[in-house]
């Protein structure tokens, strides 16, 4: 009797085959406790390593807001957007969540090779844990953002609850991006060196310290295209909610929703397609 017959007769399955998409997603869901614990424990261990611990989570965006504020506040002098300080703070704080997710996602597989090579679990757990970790870190930053904008005249009102759907969409979008980059860097390892530049490019184009809608006023076609910039959509909505000088561009809600769903679905399928590939050296 041949080996494959013996295997079939004893209901042995071939090792290393990629599970179907639905089985895969079910298994990822079943491992949610692991995913969450991984995120939580990583935050805990990071906090134990630094003397200032958790404080760094908020200090980092404050420091970069100060640097950008100084530099661009001076350069832009006359053409600073209205209510510049909270405008900038919202931009920097939100972009921090995106950047850490993209960079962390890009590294989530390649910097965990040992783990991937020694335990079987759906690899998607790793980029999900990374983005979850960043989401948890984003929460104190968000609180601080509310406090700071209030110092500059914002007053809490019911519309602030719109932050819940906004952050939900933003989170899903970031997760999709992280999944795409998690796989890309596995194929093209050198890409991880590029990611910081990509994220900087995105940072400068998404309107962190200028208002693209005023800048692009004379070019209506460009303005229409730019309205699809997902990160600027996030920033514009957040500023519309918090600051009196800006209004919420309502069409951005569905544009952002489309982005989030499309990127997340594309990212999930794209990542799953290479499941057997992760951790392999040859």
């Amino acid at each position, binding site marked *: 009797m041949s080996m494959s017959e013996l295997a079939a007769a004893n209901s042995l399955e071939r090792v290393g085959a990629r599970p179907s998409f639905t089985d895969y997603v079910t298994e990822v869901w079943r491992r949610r406790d692991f995913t969450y614990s991984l995120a939580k424990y990583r935050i*805990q261990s990071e906090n134990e390593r630094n003397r200032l611990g958790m404080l760094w989570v908020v200090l980092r965006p404050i420091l970069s807001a100060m640097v950008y504020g100084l530099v661009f506040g001076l350069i832009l002098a006359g053409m600073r957007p209205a209510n510049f300080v909270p405008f900038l703070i919202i931009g920097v704080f939100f972009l921090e969540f995106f950047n850490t997710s993209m960079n962390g996602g890009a590294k989530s597989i390649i910097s965990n090779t040992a783990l991937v090579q020694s335990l079987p679990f759906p690899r998607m757990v790793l980029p999900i844990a990374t983005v979850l970790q960043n989401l948890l870190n984003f929460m104190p930053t968000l609180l601080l953002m509310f406090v700071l904008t209030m110092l500059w005249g914002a007053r809490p009102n019911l519309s602030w609850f719109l932050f819940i759907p906004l952050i939900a969409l933003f989170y899903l979008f970031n997760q999709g991006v992280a999944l795409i980059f998690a796989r890309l860097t596995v194929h093209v390892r050198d890409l991880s060196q590029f990611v910081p530049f990509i994220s900087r490019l995105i940072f400068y184009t998404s309107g962190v310290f200028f208002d693209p809608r005023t800048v692009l006023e004379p070019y209506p076609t460009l303005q229409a295209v730019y309205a699809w910039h997902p990160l600027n959509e996030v920033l514009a909505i957040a500023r519309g909610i918090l600051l009196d000088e800006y209004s919420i561009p309502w069409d951005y809600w569905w544009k952002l929703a489309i982005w989030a769903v499309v990127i997340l679905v594309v990212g999930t399928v794209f990542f799953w397609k290479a499941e057997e590939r992760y951790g392999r050296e040859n």
Partner: protein
Amino acid sequence: MAERTEKPAEGRPVVACDDVHVEFRTLATGKPIKPSMSSGLLQRGRSLRTVHALKGVTFVARANESIGIIGTNGSGKSTLMRTITGLTPATRGAVYAKSRPNLLGVGAALIPDLSGGNNIILGGLAMGMERSEIEAQYDEIVEFTGLEDFIDMPMRTYSSGMSARLKFAIATAKEHEILIVDEALSVGDRDFQKKSEKRIRDIRERAGTVFLVSHSMRSIRDTCNRTIWIEKGELRADGDTDAVVKEYEQHR
């Protein structure tokens, strides 16, 4: 066909390797050591090298067996084990298994800055246990490690033997149908080696199958009822432990 699977003396097959070949293709870097080996400007530095780590290994492992894997350094033992778990793909041939075999590799999931106790939880979750299962076994795991006084200390402060104990205790807390132990026992002290060998025998008694890769013929003799000798990627011998180990020792 029927009479072979019905044989009372043998357990059900749980892992079957069918003519497994593994080739590694790696970019060899660095200049050739001897100048005579260099061949022109363009080829210098990097060339694609193929390492044929396994050259057609075939065997069937059954329930209730504990199988020793022996062979000299670089003969392909770890590669074979990783192929069985599906972590390294077979270039040719196939591996069939009843359930996904577990490599005793929980160490990679642990975080050095966390306490031993938190790592027990994290490691258990990483192996796919439920949190309630881990909590139910927590005390037993701690007792097995013998690290009661250190369980709240960060793992990075442990000695290598202490972390080996912790890893082994976590890894064997789960009910494994098929467990692979690759050189995990060699770091522990004599006491712990005895304790872990006993645990491997327990797993086998609960109808599990254990693969033990070791260079310690004493460990192999004490724990394995069958031994496979891998040499230069080929299966050199497969059979009763005493016979295979004797042959291996004469060969050296």
